[in-house]
């Protein structure tokens, strides 16, 4: 399997996405915005279509439109109006429908061109794609490393972050942009419709077994790598003759499998942890100890 160039590139791309998507996803889930990725993915499709129609780069189009969409989504969310929820829905549907319609405008354009972006086409990752993916992943991880502490507080308690002098608006937009970049990168691997799964499912699986944020992020990244490499390998091994297993869905199903196993193991580890720590501290205990003769 490793003797094929395309497979080497695919595995490397899967590895990079497997690390970056859950890392960003941990902050997104912390902020209770699990579906943000889906929204950005829908919007990015219009960018892909614009790239196809203008015969420029679909990847570049997706980056530009996804980042713009992410900023608009964040501004709508922050405005906190009651209509914000509906406005988001309008944006998502507009992105998806716009993507399909714009593709139709291209001479000889058919929606089948979009399929590889909707469901991923990791085996067609070129060397140049790999450089773009590598660069974006490095940028995403660098942002998380530099701003991680502030982002943690922001995602935990936005008002508290503001009271602590954290630049809430700047960091919120930064997080949305980072999410958009991750989604465009992951688009090649699992496709826009499943992109959010790679950000959310490994985190959901990890938090069945962890009690802390850093531990969750680390385990989610491990699960992300395991799922993307495992899913890709499985789709390669089991695609025989007429049967053709798509890598994207295989990766997502592998991640869901990891979630299932973690959810079953979770109660066991929690019980063990509960034994390790002496029962919950009663606030009156100190007093009782003092008063004892």
């Amino acid at each position: 399997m490793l003797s094929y160039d395309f497979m080497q590139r695919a595995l490397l791309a899967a590895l990079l996405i497997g690390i970056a998507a859950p890392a960003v996803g941990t902050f997104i889930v912390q902020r209770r915005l699990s579906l943000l990725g889906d929204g950005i993915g829908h919007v990015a499709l219009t960018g892909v279509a614009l790239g196809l129609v203008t015969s420029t780069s679909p990847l570049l189009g997706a980056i530009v439109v996804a980042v713009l969409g992410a900023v608009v989504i964040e501004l709508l969310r922050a405005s906190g109006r009651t209509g914000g929820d509906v406005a988001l829905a309008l944006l998502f549907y507009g992105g998806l429908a716009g993507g399909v319609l714009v593709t139709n405008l291209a001479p000889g354009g058919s929606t089948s061109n979009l399929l590889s972006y909707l469901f991923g086409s990791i085996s067609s990752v070129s060397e140049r794609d790999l450089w773009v993916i590598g660069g974006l992943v490095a940028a995403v991880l660098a942002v998380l490393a530099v701003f991680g502490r502030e982002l943690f507080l922001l995602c935990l308690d936005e008002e508290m972050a503001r009271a602590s002098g954290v630049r809430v608006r700047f960091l919120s937009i930064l997080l949305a942009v980072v999410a958009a970049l991750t989604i465009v990168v992951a688009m090649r691997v699992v496709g826009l419709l499943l992109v959010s799964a790679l950000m959310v499912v490994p985190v959901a699986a990890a938090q069945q077994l962890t009690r802390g944020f850093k531990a969750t992020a680390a385990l989610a990244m491990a699960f992300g790598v395991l799922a993307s490499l495992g899913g890709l390998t499985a789709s390669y091994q089991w695609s025989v003759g007429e049967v053709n297993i798509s890598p994207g869905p295989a990766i997502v199903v592998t991640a869901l499998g990891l979630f299932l196993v973690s959810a079953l193991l979770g109660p066991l580890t929690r019980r063990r942890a509960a034994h390790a720590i002496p029962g919950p501290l009663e606030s009156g205990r100190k007093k009782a100890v003092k008063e004892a003769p």
Partner: protein
Amino acid sequence: MTVETAPAPVPVFRLRGARVRLGGREVLHGIDLDVAPGEVVALMGPNGSGKSTLVRALLGLVPLAGGEREVFGARRPRDFGRLGYVPQRLSVGGGVPATVREVVSSGRIARRPRWRPSGAADRRAVAAALDALDLTPLAGRNASGLSGGQQQRVLIARALAGEPDVIVMDEPLAGVDAASQEALAGTLARLVADGVTVLLVLHELGPLAPLITRSVVLEHGAIVHEGTPPEPSGDCAAPGHDHVHPHAAPTTASLWDGGYPVQKD
């Protein structure tokens, strides 16, 4: 006649004619309030009187529609590290688990430059904050899995981890059992003894009564009463003293009785 006075210290908070509009409705109508260093101010009043909004206005979390705000003498808040805020929360935590230590450590954010990894001073401050609220044995636990009273202690410890000069608490007694209230009174007494300025939103003074140096009563978005509660002395000043003050509590209660249908829990 001239009176020699020492120059007044710069107030921690100063509001002049502060107005706040939320959702198109004016919630605070021209508030004048000074909080001097070392004061322990109780902000009281019925539900919906604007207590929490006033606190959020002081901290710069809501914009003023009119009037002026100064924090440590500056129009724009700068010294975030000197302010500790304990918001009113039903639970700590977001969609991902976070340990008690992680949550408490996040209170140091204003004290730590972005590029500097956590140093000995940070770890000491976090350990001291955990210890002050009896949270050390729970430090590795998932904060959102704790009881309501324990989570309230986590929020207070998070504020203390920043080693603030001023601590602002929104309803710290809400949903906290009697034993935890006494423990909180002890913690606050230690802070006050260290010279920390305290501003509390309270429904009732409870065990905190002996610490309060001034109470401000809000009604319909305006200050209707400011008073100095009787100075506790002798036994009353002792921490942990079961404080039943025949005249302190009714000051505010009788005030509400006057213009309001009596509020009794």
